């Protein structure tokens, strides 16, 4: 059991690192992004990576309450992506 717990801690550290690296790479694309579509895509990826960070934090702490946070972030991310894309397409969100 001690060996398995050590493995779990290593895996959690690797996952935190990968998600943080992904967040940084998406941020670089957000700054570089030649078109506005790239910027919306980078923001969408950052929201999904933040969702992953919340889920992994929930595993790390062993608390169930992080599930609601993750669900809220997923919904907010989808709505904001669609709103941004629609604003670029039409110049207006609700016509």
């Amino acid at each position: 059991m001690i060996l398995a717990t050590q493995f779990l801690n290593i895996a959690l550290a690797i996952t935190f690192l990968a998600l943080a690296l992904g967040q940084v790479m998406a941020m670089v694309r957000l700054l570089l992004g030649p078109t506005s579509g790239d910027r919306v895509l980078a923001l969408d990826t950052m929201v999904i990576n933040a969702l992953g960070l919340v889920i992994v934090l929930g595993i790390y702490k062993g608390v169930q309450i992080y599930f609601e946070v993750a669900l809220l972030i997923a919904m907010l991310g989808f709505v904001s992506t669609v709103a941004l894309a629609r604003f670029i397409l039409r110049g207006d969100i609700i016509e």
Partner: protein
Amino acid sequence: MTAQIIGTYFVCLSLIIGSGFVLVGAIGLLKFNDPMTRLHAPTKVGTVGIGMLLIASIIHSFDIGQPSTHELLIMAFLFVTAPISANFIGKVNIHCQACDTPPPPADGDTWSTLDVPVPDSER
């Protein structure tokens, strides 16, 4: 070798696979050189990456003795909404002429994305 230990190893495996796909998606987003090509890379983050992390969360909740399968809700929500947001971003790319415009339709129509909306007074 009890079920709990085997479950912990499965949690580790799912976490590693998920983080691998997250990295693949992020590198693809950074390295590809065309907006439409860049669009396809982060879909791996949204489906396989987060899916494996959620599976790890489910197995871990069974491991620590508080079983819950709520995470399937997030998975279903992400699988439903990922194509819709990808479609919207693709439309933005077409609209901003960031990629080749699609060929004109046969009967002299325009694509609905490129159609200019008619003001209400002229309808």
